[in-house]
């Protein structure tokens, strides 16, 4: 009953977030009608995708938002204050958790060695589930159908997931001054899941209304997790003290996503800011007994301030 209530609340939240996804661009266009700004759009475009080197760039986003947690009993991650910290040297850079060194840089391509903390464990750090009921079809009834007898997994028997540190290569292909493709391939370096993960992302920035400083960024791409990463975070295996009939092992996972960010300058330092993202979880992840959602949604609305 409690789980049913929790599920309904989660579905309701997702429905609200989907509504926000539709309403946010409309809200921004509405805002544009009444406001004025002196920033020229070409100048904005040129500088938005470039960053001054040898300078610490610190911003903060204040507002309200949430990142849903797909785990059974996982608490959604609230977003109220989100900092952004960046420092770019001539070759070295730190960009919101990514520590990198760009050893090839030209007008169209940058190839960097990059390292960062794998964010997948964030869901598990906000995981306070009750015991999980697994519909096991390991035994077969007389009529040949699976009886789907629910079996309980004691959550205390499941091993703690660890934070992994990934390192690898990142290729940025700058197609135009306002669009790029980013490809990443990383491997964990602290012996956590012993596997790979990667991503491919297309990024495009544009102004939907030519006479307006409104700025929209769209990102379409996918994350890829190797089999060993999927099984470490979402599998149930010998590391877990669970009846072997309840083990869950799967293959690699491809999670496609779309992200939409919009901002509107209110002053030199303040911007109205909103973000929505929708990620579809791969079958190999959503079929895990510890996962109850098919997707992952992030939504935020507020303002950003540049220090």
């Amino acid at each position, binding site marked *: 009953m409690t789980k049913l209530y929790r599920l309904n609340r989660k579905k309701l939240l997702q429905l609200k977030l989907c509504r926000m996804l539709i309403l946010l661009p409309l809200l921004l266009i509405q805002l544009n009608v009444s406001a004025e700004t002196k920033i020229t759009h070409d100048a904005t475009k040129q500088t938005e995708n470039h*960053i001054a080197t040898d300078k610490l760039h610190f911003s903060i986003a204040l507002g309200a938002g949430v990142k849903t947690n797909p785990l059974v009993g996982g608490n959604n991650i609230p977003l109220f204050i989100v900092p952004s910290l960046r420092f770019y040297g001539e070759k070295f850079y730190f960009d919101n958790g*990514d520590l990198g060194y*760009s050893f090839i840089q030209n007008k169209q391509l940058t190839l960097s060695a990059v390292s960062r903390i794998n964010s997948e464990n964030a869901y598990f750090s906000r995981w306070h589930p009750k015991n999980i009921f697994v519909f096991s079809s390991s035994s077969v009834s007389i009529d040949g159908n699976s009886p789907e007898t629910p079996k309980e997994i004691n959550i205390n028997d499941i091993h703690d997931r660890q934070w992994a540190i990934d390192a690898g290569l990142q290729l*940025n292909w700058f197609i135009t001054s306002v669009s790029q493709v980013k490809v990443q391939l990383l491997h964990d370096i602290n012996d956590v899941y012993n596997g790979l993960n990667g991503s491919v992302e297309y990024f495009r920035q544009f102004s939907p209304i030519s006479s307006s400083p409104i700025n929209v960024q769209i990102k379409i791409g996918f994350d890829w997790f190797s089999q060993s990463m999927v099984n470490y975070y979402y599998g149930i295996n010998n590391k877990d003290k669970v009846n072997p009939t309840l083990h869950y092992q799967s293959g690699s996972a491809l999670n496609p996503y779309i992200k939409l960010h919009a901002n509107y300058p209110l002053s030199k330092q303040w911007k109205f800011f909103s973000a929505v993202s929708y990620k579809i979880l791969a079958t190999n992840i959503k079929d895990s007994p510890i996962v109850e959602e098919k997707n992952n949604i992030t939504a935020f609305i507020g303002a950003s301030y540049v220090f």
Partner: protein
Amino acid sequence: MYSKAIHIILTGYFFYNTFSVNAAEFKQPIIHFSITPLACIVKQIGDECQLTTTVDWQSEQALDVCLIQDKVALKCWKNAISGKSVLPVQLNRTTTFTLKNNKTQILAKQLVKISATTPKKYRRKLRSDWSLF
């Protein structure tokens, strides 16, 4: 009858207040304020600039004023109608110098700009803004 009288008094008070506030806003006792030089050249933005500035001000009436840089009083004058001083100052960004009275009202202000001989270097961002979302 009483309410009409109260209404007239309140309206009169409102107009008096509005008029007196506006009068105070527009009555600037400072007739001249300058700080030179108006700019400082550094090698790179962020570098500190050390300047010897000449501050000069004049007023129609005797004033207690202070020259302020970033909330710090550099020099104060008591009951003076003019002031002139040569002061060493340090800047690491474009800064506004203000002349404030003892009620901390800004009576005059002057911007001193910092410019760099080495232009800023830029490179392409490798992660988009707010990629944490």
